[in-house]
């Protein structure tokens, strides 16, 4: 450690001798997004070393998965990224379907897109609002939750739950949408679209917000790839990768015929499909501001996708079909599938042995890889930057610890 610090030009020494302090940020801390514990080694306000400690929310979900049938494990995936449980359901369902070579009906496919993209909006709203909270502004958080509540209302209508839905399941969805749902969803989108301007005014383009986030926690393209980052964190560093476009066939087939651009800065510009505020001159690609901005763009794009999905879903005739039986046997063999969840690429792995219960069930969490960069990003920053950086990674401890 000492050798790294000596060479680091960011570490400066003052004439006044001060002593280093070890501080525990978390697990009970307002800004560590759950029970994350960061051990900071600080010299005054300057952080010389950060070490994340995890495991406080470990619930043996993967082991439990080896004792339940594939469909019975769906509620456990809800509790991984509990802010985007729909996308977790989808990931596991698709992995199982991949092993079983099962294909859902056309209508169910569009409904899955609809629900997954709404889930992405809901998750990014939390990420955005909580990021404002990390930077010390409270109001955007509540604005974000106001909108999220409306999405949750829609979800509740569809499946009866507001947090852990288990709606998307192996072989389709547990139920079709109730009558009038699509109109209410469109009404929400119409109401939500103009509100995004307010978020840009309060956060994205706010001078203090830019000062706090621009050029902070800069993660280079190579570093992001090396650490296995994914999702908005990866795209914030300028890597053009989105599994909805670049993923495996069974996943990209879901988005067949959907038009969207990957929210990433290419040739110095973001997609121009909508009005976005300009990039501030201070911001460097890969910094906290860009990670945040990518999420804001994705919210708008997801709204587009939801609109497209509504059209296609209502154009489809027939029903969404029935999900598989709870005790459906899984063929022998294994399957691994990564999907593009709001937080990043969430992978599910299962090994079947011919019975209904998977022999192995595993999850690859995006937040885990995204969190692992904290130690590198936070070296030499100020204490106030630690929440700014960790917040911009938008991690969920339920997914990391499982």
């Amino acid at each position, binding site marked *: 450690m000492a050798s790294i610090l000596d060479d680091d030009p960011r570490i400066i020494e003052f004439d006044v001798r001060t002593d280093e*302090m070890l*501080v525990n940020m978390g697990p009970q*801390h*307002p*800004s560590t997004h759950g029970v994350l514990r960061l051990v900071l080694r600080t010299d005054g*306000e300057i952080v010389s070393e950060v070490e994340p400690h995890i495991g406080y929310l470990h619930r043996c979900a993967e082991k439990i998965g080896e004792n339940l049938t594939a469909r019975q494990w769906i509620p456990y995936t809800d509790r991984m990224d509990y802010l985007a449980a729909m996308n977790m359901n989808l990931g596991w369902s698709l992995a199982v379907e991949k092993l079983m070579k099962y294909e859902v009906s056309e209508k169910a496919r569009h409904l899955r897109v609809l629900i997954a993209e709404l889930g992405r909006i809901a998750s990014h709203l939390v990420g955005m609002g909580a990021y*404002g*909270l*990390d*930077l*010390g*502004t*409270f*109001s955007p958080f*509540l*604005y974000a939750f*106001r909108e999220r509540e409306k999405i949750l209302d829609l979800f509740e209508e569809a499946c009866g739950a507001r947090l852990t839905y288990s709606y998307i399941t192996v072989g389709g969805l547990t139920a079709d949408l109730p009558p009038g749902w699509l109109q209410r969803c469109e009404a929400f989108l119409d109401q939500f679209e103009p509100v995004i301007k307010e978020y840009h005014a*309060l*956060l994205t383009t*706010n001078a*203090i*917000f830019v*000062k*706090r986030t621009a050029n902070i926690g800069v993660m280079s393209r190579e570093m992001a790839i090396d650490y296995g980052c994914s999702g908005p964190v990866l795209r914030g560093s300028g890597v053009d990768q989105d599994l909805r476009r670049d993923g495996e066939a069974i996943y990209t087939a879901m988005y067949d015929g959907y038009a969207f651009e990957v929210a990433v800065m290419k040739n110095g510009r973001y997609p121009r499909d909508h009005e976005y505020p300009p990039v501030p001159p201070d911001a460097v690609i890969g910094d906290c501001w860009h990670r945040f901005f990518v999420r804001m763009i994705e919210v708008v794009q997801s709204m587009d996708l939801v609109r497209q999905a509504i059209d296609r879903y209502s154009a489809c005739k027939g029903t969404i079909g029935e999900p598989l039986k709870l005790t459906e046997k899984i063929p022998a063999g294994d399957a691994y599938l990564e999907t593009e969840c709001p937080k990043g690429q969430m992978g599910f792995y299962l090994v079947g042995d011919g019975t209904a219960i998977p022999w192995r069930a595993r999850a690859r969490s995006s937040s885990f890889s995204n969190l692992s960069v904290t130690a590198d990003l936070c070296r030499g920053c*100020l*204490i*106030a*930057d*630690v*929440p700014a950086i960790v917040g911009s990674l938008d991690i969920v401890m339920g997914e990391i610890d499982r």
Partner: protein
Amino acid sequence: MVEYLIDRVGLPGWLAWTAAASLAAVLILNVIAGGALVFIWAERKIAARIQDRLGPTRTGGKFGWLQSLADGIKLLAKEDLMPDGADGMLFRLAPYVSFCASFCAFIALPFAFDFVGLRLNVAVFFVVAVLGLEVFGVILAGYASASKWSLFGSMREAAQVVSYEVPLGMCVVVPVMLAGSMDMVTIAEKQAGWFWNWYLFHDPFTFVIFWVYVTCAVASVNRAPFDLAEAESELVAGFHTEYSGLRWSFFFMAEYGSMFLVSAMAAVLFLGGWNGPVPLATLAGLSEGTGDTAGYLVRLLGMVNLLGKATLGVLVMMWIRWTLPRLRIDQVMTTCLKYCTPIAAVMFAGAMLWQLFLPGGLVPGMRRPAGEIREGWLEGPGGRGAASAATGSGDLVLAPAAQVRP
């Protein structure tokens, strides 16, 4: 008031003095304590409205107006916790140090013509000085809590408040220079008349420096976006992390007291003090200087004016708090040292030159000519000094209103 008690009521002199002094003390106490309750309620309602919520609605019937009182009772009943490693004495005393500093400054603050706890010749200086003492309570709290977060918070506060005293002092000096006195009563008197007599509109430099003052004032009372000492997303709760119950509420009251104080000071120094935008009383032919009932009512109107302006200032601070993110400590220091201080210095020089070359303002006749005689020592034997010489020694600490002026 003392004369009134002696002449009309027939109290003995000492009792009249005591009664008048205690009345003043009780009034000031209530302004702070009651003000804090009202402001806490207002903050909750305003924050709620800004955030599309309702805020407290039930306590006390409508609008939850008794919410702060209920909170107070809850705080009283809370268990008083102290960390094991804490320095007991300092931990217990720190909130009171903070609160006393905030309270003390009110003694020199005029609420209206003659409504002042103690008319100090150096009132502005005194208020700024005493306000700076609040930081001691915070430092002690941070040290005595034996918590690293508290220590961080208190060190931040110390650095911040001490730094912001510099530009704050420069901003405060400008009205002092224009009025030629550090006496807040005199400063407010000089801004009597229409609103263009306010020092805010005196010249472009004072207009700019008012905003510098607002920035520095917000910073020196630790409100968002400068609330680094209690930055909840970084330092848990900063210097009061380990406090609970009544002790914690003392910090809270000190904060609201200071907020009100700097707002009232802004009102007195820049916004005409108790003089409304339109000189209603003067137009109606009344004068606040007379000792009769009419004069008293005019003063009451002035007090409403000042309280209104100060409250407006506090509300603006709340509005800012619920809108902006928090700055980082180095940005806070940069704001102070690289922006506020140079701007304040330049504006100070500008206001000085303006006062030198354009004392009457740009439009002739609009402004009352600046007085040639600045202080009592030039007024001669019949002036203010002789009249107040006859009073007893008690007015040193709490001079009741009527005593100060002839």
